[in-house]
């Protein structure tokens, strides 16, 4: 099925000063838009446009002959998931069932933060850091380039884009500062809660 580029769930300037309007304009209108358009072309060529984007991602993961389709499918999906993982006034320690589950599975919120920061900062080159549900437990994972946890049968709950385009205009080389800001001021715990409820 053709995949539609979603609008951002907030205004382009809604995440300032943490993520600039310019970054969101390029990230959404150029990068995400291009992944979506390329996906829609390639999925038709591959004769797979009767499938949902999630089905396509799972079906062709690891198939080197479908690398370009996979990259664009996964990047189209990942960015939509990323926009929802951010919110103005987000971040900080979640309360309620999400907070309880984090404490139960990581030991403490600080432990989670440490694991997530390590994953995001050590994903060498381009990629993503994720909070996922794996067999009922919370886990932090990192993935290179376009890869996402769907291919490993995990349920993504939250993600951070650590491709340099996600932060270079605002943070330049300081990826660690971007990660810290995501956790303190941007992470959308309501989205995590929704994803946990659906899982």
């Amino acid at each position, binding site marked *: 099925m053709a995949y539609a580029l979603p609008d951002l769930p907030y205004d382009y300037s809604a995440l300032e000063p943490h993520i600039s309007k310019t970054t969101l304009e390029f990230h959404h209108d*150029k990068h995400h838009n291009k992944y979506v358009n390329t996906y829609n072309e390639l999925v038709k060529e591959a004769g797979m446009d009767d499938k949902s984007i999630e089905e396509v991602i799972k079906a062709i993961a690891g198939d080197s002959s479908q690398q370009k389709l996979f990259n664009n499918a996964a990047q189209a999906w990942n960015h939509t998931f990323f926009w929802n993982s951010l919110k103005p006034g987000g971040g900080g320690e979640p309360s309620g069932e999400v907070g309880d589950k984090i404490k139960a599975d990581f030991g403490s919120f600080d432990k989670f933060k440490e694991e997530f920061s390590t994953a995001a900062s050590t994903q060498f*080159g381009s990629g993503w850091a994720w909070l996922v549900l794996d067999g009922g437990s919370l886990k932090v994972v990192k993935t290179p380039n376009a890869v996402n946890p769907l291919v490993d049968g995990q349920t993504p709950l939250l993600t951070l884009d650590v*491709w*340099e*385009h996600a932060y*270079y*205009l605002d943070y*330049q080389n300081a990826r660690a500062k971007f990660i810290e800001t995501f956790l303190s001021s941007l992470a959308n715990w309501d989205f995590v809660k929704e994803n946990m409820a659906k899982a």
Partner: protein
Amino acid sequence: MSVDRRQFLFFLGASARAMALSAVPGCTATATVAGNSRSKMEFVPGENGPFELPPLPYDYDALEPYIDAETMRFHHDKHHAGYTRNLNSAISSYPELQEKSAEELLRNIESIPEEIRKTVRQNGGGYVNHKMFWEIMSPDGGGVPTGAIAAAIDDRFGSFEAFKEEFETAGKTRFGSGWAWLVLKDGNLEVINTLNQNSPLMDGNYPIMGNDVWEHAYYLKYRNDRGEYLRQWWNVVNWEEIDRRYEMAIA
């Protein structure tokens, strides 16, 4: 980097290296314990290993307008400095590896102890790739190849234009982060690309020239338009140095 600092670094002896490093990110000069008015270098583990961040061979703004000074500053002072620091740190408890050149480490990457192999691949690659990158660019660059490399390119690719097109395609199609390369492989010129900081040396090929297509190399100026960066980059390519590398490789 100012000309003054470059000359300063250039003329420094090894014993004064620590002082020069105080100008490098991650290495901070601090006052010593109370009562001692002299300041000393705080030695960060790995900071003072065998590999030094080479100074840029020109000013930060020398490649304007094709590559802006701000990009050069971050690229050299932060990214390249980081790879250098991490490489030194990775081999800090392996004296036998500290005797080797960085290129040797990469050529023999599979024999590097497993616990540091990935770190050496990433940071040794980053160290060597960027060292070459600064040298194969010049404010007096651009134009067409000269010397033996010019004939070799025409032979192998048909024309300089055809080579440029193949090289740009290699850069554009490297998904994520990486490098586009012209390499010498079994005596022949080939255009390839590599992921992240992987060096052609790791596959037994010699890097004649390479262009950095990590987003940090172009994002401040060219944003998402990697293709435009690849096209403009030819304006700063130092064919004299590339010819020197080629002639050395075939010698």
